[in-house]
């Protein structure tokens, strides 16, 4: 799931201070789960912004809504009528949602209200951590289900590096060494022979290096 965190309040205030009518548009997808951009966050942000502008004496109307998803056109279309009443929209969706909304409504500024961070999991309530970098060619079958691209700070295909000490990464002692995790897991699975053969250099063209990516599934096309 895509994880995001709220932008600092002053950054959002700066984004919208030149407008008079602003819609805060949440997304009920991933960002709701990581408590950055669902309806609850929309209500809180809208309330805080109204209080800020009321105290400043600046006329500011703030609307609230949250779409089922902002990465599918049918849900974004729901704003077709109401968006005309606003000078700008602060989208609390991930970067994909903000852009997709902006593509549909090209005469209204669509501004980001969150910083999109990573593809990850909910480790425990209030704690979200990274698991996948969407490299486009999954290696998990040969690494015991632990991703060396997302979990190793150096994205090494053949690790660990010399910076691994006591199971921790040299980048930060709070970070577990991804390759230590892989070693422990493969040992548990009786697959330590994986380490006998280095894997080939990873083809990064399926990742960001190949430019913006696209998936087409013919059977589903209209």
């Amino acid at each position, binding site marked *: 799931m895509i994880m995001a965190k709220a932008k*600092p309040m002053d950054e959002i205030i700066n984004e919208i201070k030149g407008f008079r009518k602003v819609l805060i548009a949440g997304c009920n997808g991933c960002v709701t789960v990581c408590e950055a951009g669902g309806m609850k966050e929309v209500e809180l942000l809208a309330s805080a912004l109204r209080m800020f502008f009321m105290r400043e004496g600046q006329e500011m109307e703030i609307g609230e809504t949250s779409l089922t998803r902002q990465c599918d056109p049918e849900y974004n279309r729901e704003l077709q009528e109401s968006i005309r009443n606003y000078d700008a929209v602060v989208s609390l969706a991930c970067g994909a949602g903000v852009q997709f909304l902006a593509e549909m409504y090209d005469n209204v500024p669509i501004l980001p209200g969150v910083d999109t961070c990573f593809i990850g999991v909910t480790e425990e309530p209030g704690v979200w951590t990274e698991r996948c970098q969407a490299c486009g060619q999954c290696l998990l079958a040969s690494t015991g289900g632990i991703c060396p691209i997302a979990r190793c700070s150096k994205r090494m295909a053949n690790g660990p590096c010399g910076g691994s000490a006591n199971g921790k990464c040299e980048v930060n002692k709070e970070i577990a060494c991804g390759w230590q995790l892989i070693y422990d897991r493969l040992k548990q699975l009786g697959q330590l022979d994986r380490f006998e053969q280095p894997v080939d250099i990873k083809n990064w063209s399926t990742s960001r290096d190949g430019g913006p990516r696209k998936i087409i599934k013919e059977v589903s096309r209209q």
Partner: protein
Amino acid sequence: MRLSYPTNIRIIKVPCTGRVAPIHIMRALEKGADGVFVAGCLEGDCHYQTGNLRAKKRVAYVQEILKSIGFEPERVAMYNLSAGMGPRFAEITMEMVEKIRLLGPNPIRLKGERKEKAA
């Protein structure tokens, strides 16, 4: 006990302070309340285990939001007392009212634009 406490407070009953969400506190302030305090059970005495501890975190969260928009975080507070502590309740309300009096009225009311419609 015939205890007296300030008449300018409005009590909103909830089954447990765990029910109090940040938006409830924010809306009270947005509607013009000068301050809000959440009165939960004593820590460790929550009938629902952790309701009052959740409320404590949420009060702190609202204080952070208030700071981020330039409002005094002291306008919001969390107190813990049991249902049998009437005198303490009177004491807390007086303490809170006095604290808010020193801070002055809610800045948005000073602008004379009290939000009537905030639901």
